């Protein structure tokens, strides 16, 4: 491990502030996906279709941004989906159909995300367990707790929330605004020292340690940020579906990793950014859409979906292929 990857990443970010698209590949894939989707789905650009599409994108986008922090720090969080579940069931139990309790529920969800992230951070950074298996273990704890909070699907969110979420402000879908807010949050955090430390630790933990970067604290921060964005994902799910489900986040964990990789972030850590992950999450969601509208027979839908996603994952890695250091 040596300095070049970091040097390569930093000047580029000065040229493109706030939008660290780790490669043209992700943008190209999104453009292709949008074009194909437009061709297949006649009313793709109608305001109704746009609103409902963006409404379903937000949960995956949010969790993908959360996963980005962890991956950048050189880790991986397989418990993010369980955290989404836990945060959402806690929030839905607190809000209990009452509009005045919404702020409290939001705070509780964020608190859950924070606490889960802190636990993961402690386990990975302080106990030094290997992230893949450690977060797999904590995911059991979180999904078990979710079952305690809400044993069966139920609970509901005030109608005002779901209506507002599927509405548009000045012609812009609320959900799109939510994605923009997530992007801005990333942009702000990117300016903070913690994110610089996360890049340094992910790029080369030993070098970062030698340069007096607080490695342990930085790793904990990465998982905490991941948990907080998992809570955002949980809130988006609640606003979209209107009710709680103790299994809702299961599917999101692995999809979040796929979105991060399609977004051009290196799983080895230290290279990439959430801008790409946001686009990657949209590519993933659009692929499902495309396969649905392409009249693929039902039994072959998932196969086509899987093959396209593998191709997307392979394409996302091509820029890295050229820049790769000899010692893989």
């Amino acid at each position, binding site marked *: 491990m040596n300095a070049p990857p970091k040097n390569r990443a930093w000047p580029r970010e000065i040229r493109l502030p706030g939008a660290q698209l780790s490669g043209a590949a992700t943008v190209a894939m999104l453009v292709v996906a949008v074009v194909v989707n437009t061709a297949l789905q006649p009313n793709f650009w109608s305001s109704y279709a746009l609103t409902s599409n963006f409404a379903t994108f937000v949960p995956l986008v949010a969790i993908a941004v959360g996963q980005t922090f962890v991956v950048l720090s050189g880790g*991986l969080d*397989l418990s993010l989906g369980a955290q989404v579940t836990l945060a959402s069931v806690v929030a839905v139990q607190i809000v209990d159909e009452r509009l005045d309790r919404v702020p409290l529920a939001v705070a509780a969800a964020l608190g859950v995300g924070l606490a889960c992230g802190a636990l993961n951070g402690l*386990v990975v950074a302080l*106990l*030094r*367990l*290997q992230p*893949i*298996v*450690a977060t*797999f*273990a*904590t*995911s*059991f*704890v*979180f*999904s*078990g*707790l979710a*079952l*305690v909070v809400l*044993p069966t699907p139920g609970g509901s969110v005030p109608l005002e929330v779901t209506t507002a979420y599927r509405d548009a402000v000045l012609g812009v879908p609320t959900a799109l605004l939510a994605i923009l807010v997530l992007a801005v949050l990333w942009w702000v955090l990117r300016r903070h020292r913690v994110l610089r430390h996360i890049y340094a630790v992910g790029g080369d*933990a*030993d070098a970062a*340690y*030698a340069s007096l970067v607080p*490695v342990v604290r930085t790793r904990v921060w990465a998982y905490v940020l991941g948990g907080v964005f998992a809570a955002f994902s949980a809130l988006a799910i609640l606003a979209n579906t209107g009710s709680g489900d103790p299994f809702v986040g299961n599917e999101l964990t*692995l999809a979040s*990793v*796929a979105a991060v*990789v399609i977004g051009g972030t290196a*799983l*080895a850590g230290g290279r990439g950014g959430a801008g790409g992950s946001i686009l990657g999450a949209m590519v993933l969601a659009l692929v499902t859409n495309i396969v649905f509208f392409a009249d693929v027979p*039902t*039994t*072959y*839908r*998932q*196969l*086509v*979906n*899987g*093959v396209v*996603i*593998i191709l997307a*994952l*392979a394409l996302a*890695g091509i820029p*890295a*292929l050229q820049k*790769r250091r*000899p*010692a*893989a």
Partner: protein
Amino acid sequence: MSAPTVEAPRRILAWRPGPVALAGAVAVVLVIVGEIVSPGFAGYGQLVNLMRVAAFLGVIAIGQTIVIIAGGGGVDLSVGKVATFSAIIGSRMMAGDDGEIVPAVVLALLVAAAIGLVNGLGVTLLRIPPFVMTLGMIGVVQGLILAYTGGQASGRAAPALTSLVNGRVIADLPGLLFLWLLLGLLAVWLLRRTTFGWNLFAVGANRMAAELTGVRVNRTLILAYVLSATFAGLAGILLLGYTESVFLDLADQYMLPSVAAVVIGGTLLAGGIGGYAGTAVGAIVLTILQSLLTTLDIGGAGRTIVNGAVLLVLLSLYGRQRRLQS
């Protein structure tokens, strides 16, 4: 079978039990706890049953061990789905007919090996990180399953396969345990006594050095993924013999436990260090834990939480990474 670890610093500090001994001790402790909590837990029949359940995880984890030892972030997340697919193919091909066992098993294993080949090619030639490649493969295999079955699994295990897996052979032990022992010995032999095994450890410890020493790195890696998928397919066939009929997510839940079994057994996720004996004990530990939690009367939610907590403790026994130094 002990791992080729660097012994020098450890000998100076203090004696520490190897991962296999440690995991074995945990297994014994869990059985004793089980016997205290619910008398009869450590009965002979009960233990045999536990081993039988552990065998499926144990066989799937053979492949997982090989891939993880190969290093470079090597892991095979598609093992669960591959095992399911193999069981589905086997069940449909043999359709309860003893005469069809051999072609059915051969076809199922060939399909599994082909999936492993694609994984290996993606990891080596396209340089997709293993985690992502095999993650994407889950979706593809799930798609293959749906396309092949049309959403409805059919057929059933041939009686001969069922009696091979479930039938009592010696000392009232089911044939499955002997099959597991056989496959386990095969795995240990493969890792310790063959050129492939030595190359695998070399590649996992230092890919660059292995390449410069003349090891065919890509070929070793591809073979590792092919073997992983093949052992997963084999586990699927065994599972088919055990359950007799299949369903569409038969073996999916083995995906991450297979990784956990490997880690508990003392194989480093970073690659280059480890072995199958530890993994086998790891699989047994995980199964005993599951069974113990089922015995305890704490409800599904509590069981899941305790499972996670105990898993953390088990991982911290041997799965810890080195401290950063400058």
